[in-house]
């Protein structure tokens, strides 16, 4: 029993394949005008990393301010702008595109044996829309930011602030279209471009998860778009749809906003769950337990996710009967997520587990997402929500699922597929260290916030009662450690581009189609059209492949 399943080619003779998607064409324009899904994925990877660190810097400012009970680092107005932009950037410019636009773009066509997505030029347009929105968001920060919270609640955002609501709204609107086009592209690709023999139930679960997320993107995002249009018109012309003095209802905005923004959290988490399925299967050398259940639970999360949005509005003035309905439905939506956690656990059970970095991040995901998810159920119950809402309990809840869950899944996926995307292995020891540092930093940052929330510390406040300081200090200390944990991968991954071990086709001995070709892949992905004749995660098939390969190589060597 070895302690690693990594299988690298002989480093003395191995070379990066001369012809691959990176070397096929040269020059900046060949990247900026590409229609190759892999190059677009790399463009996205660089840009979302950039926006992540901007959002992270804003988080650093928040935690610095909260070291002391007084609002002494910055004016409270400024603090409002900092947490607003932190939310806008992290959600719309990092989390929503994170896995789909990078790993999804790169690997969905490869996993189904296609040469590209169905609409390659639309894919490039998606990236340009994303960059336009992102640059507009940066511009907004430069000219004074916006202070309404990322939720743009009316009538604050329409009548009571003088900040850049319109430009931020426009940035989000444009980024929304980027998201819609990506989701549309994925749905068409998965339906229409699978290789011969690749039936729906032979697809990797990564595909199922991204498919479900794409449905959410296509059906949910347009409602956010119209909500932003209405805010813009309310602010500029005063049409009255959200203005009580003209008979409008501010809650209508919230209904439209959360109709998207709740499914949005599933847009953010589902692709991460897809990564976890792949990683857990690979590092326990077992089929995912209950494939069908996991596949259907992805779709179930997407469908049920549309029925629960008003649980963000329990205290806002909706009727008690609506509260009842949405609270009951919110209980239901937790079930498919729980099914996944059970199935991943049962995949690990009696598997041949090795502790490479992707699996470490996956373990982090399972623990932290479970805690985040369970606290979500506490919040879905309207009785407890009345006490916990708008406190740090909510902040802790969503950071556990989004950062402890989604971001860890993203890092897991980046490490898992790094050898395929670049042809190089990352350095294992330091990456394992970074994973542990991230986990420790995360727990120290966000666990105290659950307690703070229960004790009553409100969210979005720059000042707080002095008795809350010690927990806030822990949280800020944790944030510093977390920052180190996130910085390390950037450094060693860039290092690995030059000095990393040559990975070869399949360093993880994985079963997916993407691992049966060279690393980095050819521009057209496969030299010949693949035909699928086996199930997903078929490790016996893989063994037979490897034996057959050894037999063809042995006579040559002998």
């Amino acid at each position, binding site marked *: 029993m070895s302690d690693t399943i990594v299988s690298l080619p002989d480093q003395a003779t191995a070379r990066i394949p001369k012809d691959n998607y990176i070397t096929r064409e040269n020059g900046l324009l060949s990247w900026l005008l590409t229609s190759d899904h892999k190059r677009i994925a790399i463009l996205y990877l660089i840009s979302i990393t950039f926006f992540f660190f901007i959002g992270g810097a804003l988080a650093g400012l928040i935690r610095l301010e909260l070291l002391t009970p007084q609002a002494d680092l910055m004016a409270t107005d400024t603090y409002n702008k900092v947490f607003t932009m932190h939310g806008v950037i992290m959600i719309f410019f990092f989390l929503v595109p994170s896995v789909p636009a990078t790993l999804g773009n790169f690997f969905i066509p490869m996993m189904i044996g*296609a*040469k*590209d*997505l*169905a*609409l*390659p030029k*639309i894919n490039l347009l998606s990236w340009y829309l994303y960059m336009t929105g992102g640059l507009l968001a940066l511009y907004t920060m430069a000219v004074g930011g916006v202070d309404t919270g990322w939720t743009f609640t009316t009538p604050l955002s329409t009548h009571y602030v003088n900040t850049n609501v319109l430009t931020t709204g426009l940035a989000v609107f444009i980024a929304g279209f980027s998201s*819609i086009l990506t989701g*549309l*592209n994925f*749905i*068409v*690709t998965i*339906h*229409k*471009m699978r290789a*011969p023999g690749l039936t729906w139930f032979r697809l990797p679960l990564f595909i199922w998860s991204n498919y479900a997320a794409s449905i959410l993107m*296509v*059906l*949910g*995002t*347009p*409602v956010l*778009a*119209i*909500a932003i249009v*209405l805010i813009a*018109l309310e602010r500029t*012309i*005063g*049409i*009255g*749809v959200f203005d009580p003095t*003209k*008979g*409008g*209802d501010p809650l*209508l905005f919230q*209904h*439209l906003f959360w*109709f998207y923004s709740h499914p949005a959290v599933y847009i953010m988490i589902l692709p991460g769950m897809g990564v976890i399925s792949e990683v857990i299967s690979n590092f326990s050398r077992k089929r995912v337990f209950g494939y069908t259940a996991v596949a259907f639970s992805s779709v179930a999360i997407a469908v049920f996710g549309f029925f629960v949005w008003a649980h963000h509005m329990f205290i806002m003035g909706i009727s008690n009967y609506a509260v009842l309905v949405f609270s009951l439905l919110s209980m239901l939506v937790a079930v498919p997520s729980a099914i996944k956690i059970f199935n991943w656990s049962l995949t690990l059970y009696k598997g041949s587990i090795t502790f490479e970095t992707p699996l470490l991040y996956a373990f982090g995901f399972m623990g932290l997402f479970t805690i985040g998810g369970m606290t979500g159920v506490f919040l879905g119950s309207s009785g407890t929500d009345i006490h916990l809402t708008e406190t740090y309990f909510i902040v802790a809840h969503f950071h556990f699922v989004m950062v402890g869950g989604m971001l860890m899944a993203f890092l897991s996926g980046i490490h898992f597929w790094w050898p395929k995307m670049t042809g190089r292995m990352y350095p294992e020891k330091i990456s394992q260290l970074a994973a542990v540092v991230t986990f420790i930093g995360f727990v120290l940052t966000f666990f105290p916030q659950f307690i703070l929330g229960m004790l009553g510390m409100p969210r979005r406040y720059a000042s707080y009662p002095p008795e809350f300081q010690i927990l806030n200090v822990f949280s800020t200390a944790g944030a510093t450690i977390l920052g180190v944990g996130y910085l390390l991968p950037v450094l060693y991954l860039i290092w690995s581009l030059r000095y990393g071990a040559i990975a070869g086709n399949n360093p993880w001995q994985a079963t997916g*189609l993407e691992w*049966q070709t060279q690393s980095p892949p050819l521009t*057209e992905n*496969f*030299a*010949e*059209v*693949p*035909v*699928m*004749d*086996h199930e997903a995660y078929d490790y016996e*098939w893989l063994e037979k*492949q490897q034996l057959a390969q050894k037999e063809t190589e042995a006579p040559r060597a002998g």
Partner: protein
Amino acid sequence: MKFHGAALDDNSAHQEHPSYLRHHFNSVEQQADASSFAMWLFLLTEVMFFGGLFTAYLIYRNWYYPAFVSGSHQLNVVWGATNTVVLIFSSFTMAMGVWCAETRRRRGLVLSLTLTFILGLVFLGIKTIEYSEKIEKHHVPGFHYSLQSFVDPQSDPEVYAEYHDKPLVPDMARHTELYFSLYFLMTGMHALHMIIGIGILSFMILRARAGAYTSGHVTFVENFGLYWHFVDIIWIYLFALLYLISRHQ
């Protein structure tokens, strides 16, 4: 897992295929299929986009029914019905255009697209007439909106002669502004989609004259047809909801 078929970039296997087949597709059917499915998904996003407006409309119509009735009486049913008929005919001509493309009738296609284009312009022309009427009467929200026609219906003889509306109390009369907000929002958003459609039509007419769509490659015309019919369907609902709230009161 087998790898079969021709190698993807082997020149000998680069069999004859139409120039419009993009290389990431295996066949013309797959390409046409995928692009049609993509257009339907795009139309779904449009349904959800307008959905927000319909939701707002339903809520406020429910809350302020008398105001909505009075507001609706300010719209001219003749113009509205004419526009509906115009759009229905334009859907017909568009569908005929698709048929011409499918049966390779180049001149028929150009004629159909041109008629669709003209009918689209007629629609916008009528809308312009209606909008300018609203501007004259100060029924544009946010721009010197006037309640006069509603608190004192007899000051508006044309409309009063037809409907004999009772005066609204000032509180309810104020909510007519919401009605007109939704009127301009929904018909304006619809008109924007019409303008985009007409723009694409003009491009298509030029390409159709050059025979681009009558040599087997009909997807662009078909998919545009889907878009055009969708915009027609939106209007069918807008007409019923905005113009016909209650013409008997």
